[in-house]
């Protein structure tokens, strides 16, 4: 990768970081021969652990994101849920669903992200 490409990429990343953050963001990293995606909730938001987030792949498969670390009442994730997407991908396509709750407002809502 050229230095110019790296600088442009980092600039783009910085711009994204400054943008108003939504209730969720996704982190992706290589894990062996697969790709691990992790769902990060913005401060104040919690991801409903009773309804595990789902990544619906274009071929019809559904991957559920999970974490063993939950609140004592098993209602929310304490550590961000994640899932392994088989294979190494430069880009993941699909639809991500999560039930996001804001304990301050005591409601849940459904968040759907087209990737």
């Amino acid at each position, binding site marked *: *990768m050229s230095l110019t*490409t*790296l600088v442009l*990429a980092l600039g*783009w*990343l910085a711009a*994204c970081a400054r*943008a*108003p*953050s*939504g*209730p*969720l*963001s*996704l*982190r*992706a*990293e*290589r894990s062996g021969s697969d*790709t691990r*995606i992790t769902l990060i909730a*913005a401060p*104040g*938001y919690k991801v*409903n652990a*009773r*309804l595990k987030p*789902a990544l*619906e792949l274009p071929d019809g498969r*559904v991957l559920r994101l999970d974490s063993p670390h939950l609140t004592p*009442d098993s*209602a*929310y994730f304490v550590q961000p849920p994640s899932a392994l997407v088989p294979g190494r*991908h*430069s*880009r*993941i396509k699909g639809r991500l*669903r999560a*039930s996001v*709750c*804001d304990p301050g*407002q*005591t*409601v*849940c*809502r*459904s*968040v759907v*992200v*087209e*990737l």
Partner: protein
Amino acid sequence: MPRSALLLTFSIGVVAAGTLALESSSRVQAQANLLLASRPDNRPAPPWKNESWLNADRPLTLKGLEGKVVLLNFWVFTCYNCTNTVPSLVDFDRKYRGQGLVLIGIHTPEFPPYAGEHDKRNVARALKKYHIEYPNAQDNESRTWNLYGIRFWPSFVLIDNKGVIRYEGAGEFHLNDRNYDMWDQRIRELLAEQQG
């Protein structure tokens, strides 16, 4: 392109997609505040047409409930905020059913059927677990949810004996807390009108 560049590009793409696709947290917060204000309303309740019911011998209709005060609770058993509110609703049902209140759960799934929320057996298990004896409609296609313009779980719609929506709101509450008292007062107000 080297492996590191691929990974970086991929990560940036995913982060950007998520950032662009999701609503900003401030906007969501504002929307939630608006609904949680539990505003008074005054429009005719639209008739729901759910066909699958639990705790009811036959489908309940708005027309069939003329003269009654009706409290709709939009919920789903996978929603912790919803199930935390159930004891209060069970209490309302126990206190006011004999006075003309009809409490109806509108069970609206969040996810597609693979999550199990559409399965009537799972809903029945939840009703038993939470001691819910009032009627519940399965709203598996979210038709009633959309008809009433609902956006959050749990939500509430209080309809008077003339079929007019008088109060709407959203958000968990607990036995005898401030919001419980507010809904309790509203139910009593409409029951008094009904009997007056």
